[in-house]
């Protein structure tokens, strides 16, 4: 099966995974072929992985139950990916946030909106603060991952929001 693996910065890697026998694979990336041995040891995401003779005790989780959205942690370093298989790529199911796509910025936790820093139509850079959310007695700036143009601000100062509430909707900048 062919996969497209996209990182947070929007760079993507194409990989072809072929199972040779139970738990053993051939992986082709960028013309290189690797022997891989993969086991989800505890069925909770603790994985024993060999890539050639290099060994990894990786921790893998799906985010928000979305199987295409994987977080891989190796030796304390954390990587977030979107992984799509060839069928999904063919079907064009890439409707979720990423550079060049629409992004809905949400409240990670319940809180009160104490500041709104952008207005519809404004262009914002990746990481730029959009809204200030007070939670656990701390003020937290909520930013966009990918940046873009503000399509809609859905909250106002003083409003209480629950976790997951949509705060700001962004669209890709029109100039590409």
């Amino acid at each position, binding site marked *: *099966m062919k*996969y497209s*693996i996209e*990182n947070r910065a929007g760079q993507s*890697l194409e*990989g072809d*995974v072929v*199972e040779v026998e139970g738990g053993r*694979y051939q*992986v082709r*990336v960028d013309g290189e072929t*690797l022997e*891989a041995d*993969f086991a*989800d040891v505890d069925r*909770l*995401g*603790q*994985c024993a*992985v060999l*890539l050639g003779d*290099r060994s*990894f005790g*990786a*921790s*893998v*989780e*799906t985010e928000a139950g979305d*199987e*295409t959205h*994987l*977080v*891989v*942690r*190796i*030796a*304390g*370093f*954390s*990587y977030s*990916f979107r*992984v799509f*298989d060839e069928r999904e790529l063919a079907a064009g199911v890439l409707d979720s946030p990423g550079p060049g796509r629409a992004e809905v910025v949400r409240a*990670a*936790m*319940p*809180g009160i909106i104490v500041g709104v820093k952008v207005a519809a139509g404004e262009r914002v850079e990746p990481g730029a*603060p959009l809204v200030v*959310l007070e*939670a*656990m007695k*701390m003020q*937290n*700036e*909520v*930013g966009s991952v990918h940046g873009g143009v503000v399509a809609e601000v859905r909250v106002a100062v003083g409003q209480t929001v629950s*976790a997951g509430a949509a705060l700001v909707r962004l669209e890709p900048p029109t100039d590409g």
Partner: protein
Amino acid sequence: MKPPFAKLLIANRGEIAVRVLRTCRDLGIKTVAVYSEVDRNSLHVRYADQAFALGGKTPAESYLRGDRIIEIALQCGAEAVHPGFGFLAENPGFAAAVATAGMAFVGPPPKAMAVMGDKIQSRQEMVAAGVPVIPGMTEPCPDPAAAAGFAEQIGYPVMLKASAGGGGKGIRVVRSAGKLEAAFRTASAEAEGAFGDGRMYVEKFLERPRHIEVQVLGDHRGRVIHLGERECSIQRRHQKLIEETPSPVIDAATRAAMGATAVAAAEAVGYYSAGTVEFLWSEGEYYFLEMNTRIQVEHAITEEVYGVDIVEWMIRIAAGQELSLDQAVQPRGHSVEVRINAEDPELGFLPAVGKLRNLRMPSGPGVRIDSALYRRMEVTPYYDSMLAKIIVHGSSRDQAIRRMQRALAELNVGGVKTSASIALEILGTEEFQSGVYDTGFLERWMAGGRPQREPYAREAAIIAALHRHHLARRRSIRRAGGGGLSPWVAQGRRTGWGGGGR
């Protein structure tokens, strides 16, 4: 050995409740837990001998309900109450109420707590006791001349601060006499404009200050000792993230001097139990900042280096026992702590929530874990974001740092973002490694576009693809094998052909 108390109530939750509970077990004391609605399944409840619901989710509905807690303690026959940190720990009224109810409060005398809890009163007491405080005016001054006179007294650089100040407005650092008058006028005008009040203070300006604190322990006889310092300058928004002891800038002579100062501070307010005297240190000088009249998050690094259980001593002292340790107690090796907070360092340390699905805890030589984590724990927004502490001990600073790097490489807290990743990066910086850092380091480094170290980016991507492949395969096996149905029936049901009852 007879336990100091038969039964003790822990008026707290999370990591510190478990920490206190463990020492109670080590002393043979029965423990009573209290819990809020969301903490029903917590480790501090499970490991306790008895547990009582406080109700509610917020601190006000639960762990701040001093009256209810005292009522429970009396009802179940507890002889003592340990407040942990936060919540009621520095509330003199609660401490006094526990004593009035006939139980021992495991902490300092309420009066010492009250004095140290008041910024102005504590500063006055410390000045009277000969404890160095940051030199500064005690009254605002109206004109540049008075400011210049005071600056001359305390020496440059100085800081001009608006009397009504806040948010960084009306603040100027002045490095020489010649620049004072102009700085005073612009700052005063700025303050006048912003707050309608142009009066200014002058205070000694500390260059790249470090936050260094001293642990003290005292008993009812008035014996007070110190257990050395803790270096706590790795902070963001005044929240400590990494602590170590000894401090890379403190030698034995300074340790003895700062320790004696901390002991004098404690003695000045008739202190007993464990407490921490916080100092700002700059260029070899140190100044009293405040005293925390409770056990502190980072106490464990002192325990590792001195081989002393501080919570044990708090409990023994509360039971009226004499401190059998004396100032001859010697430190050994080096200890580092990293706080594992539920927060996203990539989004300005925004508190994070979630369910812990995939936990892997470090262990091995030199590693101590003080934690409240368990699989399927729900991290909620109601309480402090600190989930666990990783504490390491080594024979040298170098070994301790490497052990912490190893421990953080083994750690996985899956399902919620934590500060572990940024701590690992900080430990690898030249600044941390060399020990040359101050309280501004972390924010400067974060703001300065820190170098992105991504040593396993490609391997992680390949593993992500393998895992996705594996998930799909496992699902297809489950589907095929589920409930003993043949793949054909399963396939039929999935696509809506046949099957029934929907």
